[in-house]
């Protein structure tokens, strides 16, 4: 079983991390796909809002968890001086690349799922492009905050 714990140099993750990331993503989009629509149908927007907070919150705790222990946000390191990630979703080369959120699973999974259920992907292209541009701008905006002070 030890091979599961040895990092694969090429991808910066251990085999166990590949498995947990895959299932962490799949579980999130599955729960959203089944529950959210029906919750909004049954309870209207208020129910949908509170339920969405609970669904995303609980699954966030499972998937992303804090890379450290306790309040304060210090990073725990393992025997090889690598940061320990406590969630199911493991970032490859942690701190080497940008953050991959569990939102990717929801975004891609719901889109592909609706295509599987018969929706048209061509009609969604304008909205998809607009959403991608919007997300890029929003993220860049928050990144700019780090330039508001001199280093």
């Amino acid at each position, binding site marked *: 079983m030890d091979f599961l714990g040895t990092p694969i140099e090429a991808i910066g993750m251990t085999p166990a991390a590949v498995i947990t990331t895959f299932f962490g993503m799949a579980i999130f989009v*599955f729960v959203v*796909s089944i529950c959210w629509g029906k919750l909004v149908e049954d309870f209207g927007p208020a129910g949908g809002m509170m339920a969405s907070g609970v669904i995303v919150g609980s699954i966030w*705790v499972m998937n992303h968890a804090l890379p450290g222990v306790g309040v304060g946000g210090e990073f725990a390191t393992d025997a090889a001086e690598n940061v320990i990630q406590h969630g199911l979703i493991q970032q*490859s080369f942690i701190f080497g690349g940008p953050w991959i959120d569990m939102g990717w699973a929801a975004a891609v999974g*719901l889109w592909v*799922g609706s295509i599987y259920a018969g929706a048209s992907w061509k009609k969604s292209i304008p909205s998809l492009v607009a959403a991608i541009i*919007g997300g890029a*701008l929003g993220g860049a905006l928050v990144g700019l905050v780090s330039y508001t002070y001199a280093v």
Partner: protein
Amino acid sequence: MIKHVSTTIGAAIIGAMGFAIWPVLWQTFGVMGGYLASVLVVTVMFYMNHWCGIMHNEEGAAWVDMAWGIAIAGITWGLVKRDMDVNFAKCLPTLVIAICGGIAGGIMGEAIKKHHPAFQKPTDETTKEAE
């Protein structure tokens, strides 16, 4: 045209709120902060983007979720931030696995909604049989 502008704005706002609020709360309150952040951000963003319809989804078009805003913002935030020395190529393994896992989960969810007996709408014949 305004539909596409509002979709851009909706995705930008959830992308910005996600990465401005979540890390701060998680570092202050630990794991519970992450939970609190999702309640604060996702609820009102769902209401704005999907219930009020800011992120436009055509009838019969594939569903473009507000999660696209968060997903892409995660990448651009990491690339624009100053204090991190990031290389985009290093996020690709997790990204590929994320897309595969997302597709698997999404298709499984839709397949269950299509075939599972608990999700079939009762037709007139079954209600007549019950009477």
